[in-house]
C-alpha cells in the first residue's frame, strides 16, 4: 500500500481536485496536500488518491542521462588501461 505512481496532471478542478493520467488511466485525486501550485502537465506522485509532490523533471532527466552514459561505457570495448 506504500506504492505510489508517477502521473501527469491533465485537468484541475475546483475544491483542490485534479484529474491525473497514469499510463492511459485517468482518475481524480486530491491536491489538498500539495505545498505548491500545481499546473497542467506537471508530473506528480499519487498515493491513496492524493498528490504528494511534484516530480522534478530536470532531475529525472539528469539521472536518465547518467544511466545512458553508464550503458555506453559498459558497451564500449574496455580501455586498455
Amino acid at each position, binding site marked *: *500500500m*506504500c*506504492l*505510489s505512481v*508517477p*502521473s*501527469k496532471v491533465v485537468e*484541475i478542478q475546483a475544491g483542490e481536485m485534479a484529474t491525473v*493520467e*497514469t*499510463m492511459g488511466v485517468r482518475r481524480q*485525486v*486530491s491536491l*489538498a*496536500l*500539495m*505545498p505548491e501550485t500545481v*499546473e*497542467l*502537465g*506537471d*508530473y506528480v*506522485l499519487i*498515493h*491513496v*488518491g*492524493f498528490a*504528494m*509532490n511534484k*516530480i*522534478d*523533471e530536470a*532531475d*529525472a*532527466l539528469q*539521472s*536518465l542521462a547518467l*544511466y545512458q552514459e*553508464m*550503458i555506453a*561505457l*559498459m558497451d564500449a570495448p574496455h580501455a586498455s588501461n
Partner: protein
Amino acid sequence: MRQTEDHALALQQLYEGFRDPKTLQALAEQITERAQYLSRPLRIMEACGGHTHTVMKYGLKSLLPELIEFIHGPGCPVCIMPKERIDQAIALAQMENTILLTLGDMIRVPGSKTSLAKVSAQGHDVRALYTPMDAIQIAQQHPDKQVVFFAIGFETTTPMTAVVLQQAQQLGLTNLFFHINHVLVPPAVSALLEDDDCRIEALIGPSHVSVIAGAKIYQPLVDSYGLPIVVSGFEPVDVMQSLLMIVEQVLANQPRLQIQYSRAVNWEGNVKAQQLMEQFLQPRATFRWRGLGDIPFSALQLRPEFAQWDAEQVFAHHLSNEALDDHKMCICGDILRGIAQPKDCAVFGRGCDPQRPLGSCMVSSEGACHAYYRYANVPKIPGRSQGAVK
C-alpha cells in the same frame, strides 16, 4: 491556466527509464566490480515493503554478488499490525449500525480468531477504500450509522488521515470516527539497531515516507549508529543505484545520508503535509509492533482536543488491549527483525500462502513472505529442495 505540453521528459520514461534492463546490467557490473573490495558480507536492510517487492519482482538478487545480502525490514504497515489492533478493528466492525473502513490488504489479515474479511462475509459492513477521502462521502451518505476509519500506514499515509479529519471537522460530521494506527519509521529502525541480534549494516531508506517526512528524519540514525543510509526510489534502477552508493560509502568508511531518489525527495519533505499531521496527531507513548514488541514513541494518536473523533476513546468499552501472541508457527517477528528469512519458516508455502495466510507477512504484497512466495520458484511439494530462494 497554462497548457504545458512541451515536455522534455515523457511520462513513460519515468517508468521505463528506471526499469531499463541495460541500465540494471550496467549498475550490476559496477556493483560487482566495487564489491570485490568489501572485506566481508554487507547486510543491507530495506525498510520499505515497496523495496522488498522490487527486489523480488525484478530478481535483483540474481544480479548481485553474494556478498550483498538483503534484510527485509518492518516496512509494511499491514505486516507490523499486532493482533490486538486487528481484533479491535473486528470488534468495531461488529458493533451495531456500524461501517468499518480501512485500506488495502488490512481486511485479510488474521486477528486472534477471525479477520475483517470473514466478519464482512458474515454480514457486517466492512469496506476497503481506494482513498481515505471516500470516508467523508460514506459518512455523509449514512447519517444514521457510525462510520469508523481504521487508519493504517507510515508517514506516507498519515497526512491523508489528517486531511480527512480536517474535512470532517469543517463539515461538522458527528458520525465519522478514527482508529489511528499510524506508525513511524525511524523509531522502529532504532529499535532494531539497539537489538543485540541486529545484523543491519546499511539502510535503503523508504521512498514515499521520505517524500512526506523528508530525508532529514534519518540523520539521527547516521549520527547515532554510523549507519550508511541512501534514500532510494522504488524502481529497480533506483534500488541498484542506491546499492552502489551504499557500497561506495562502506568502502570509503564514511557512513552518511544520501538521497538517490532526488527527483522526488528532498531534505525537508512536504512541509504542508507535516504541519497537517502535527495539527491533528501526536506521538503515542508506546505502540506494540508485531514481532518487534513495544517501541516507545513509534506511533501516533489523535491529539486530545479531537477526542470526539477518536474511536479508541468513544468506543473504549468495546475494545480490549490485551497483548496477543502470533501464531506459534509464524516467525514473521524474526523476519521483520532481519534474523530469519521466509524460507526458514516451517509452514512457508505449505500451510501458509497468500490464499490462506497464517501471518501478516504473507498477507500484504509488500510483506517479505508474500514477495518470496510470489516471485521465487518455491516448490510447493514438501521435501523438494529449495528452488531459486536463497
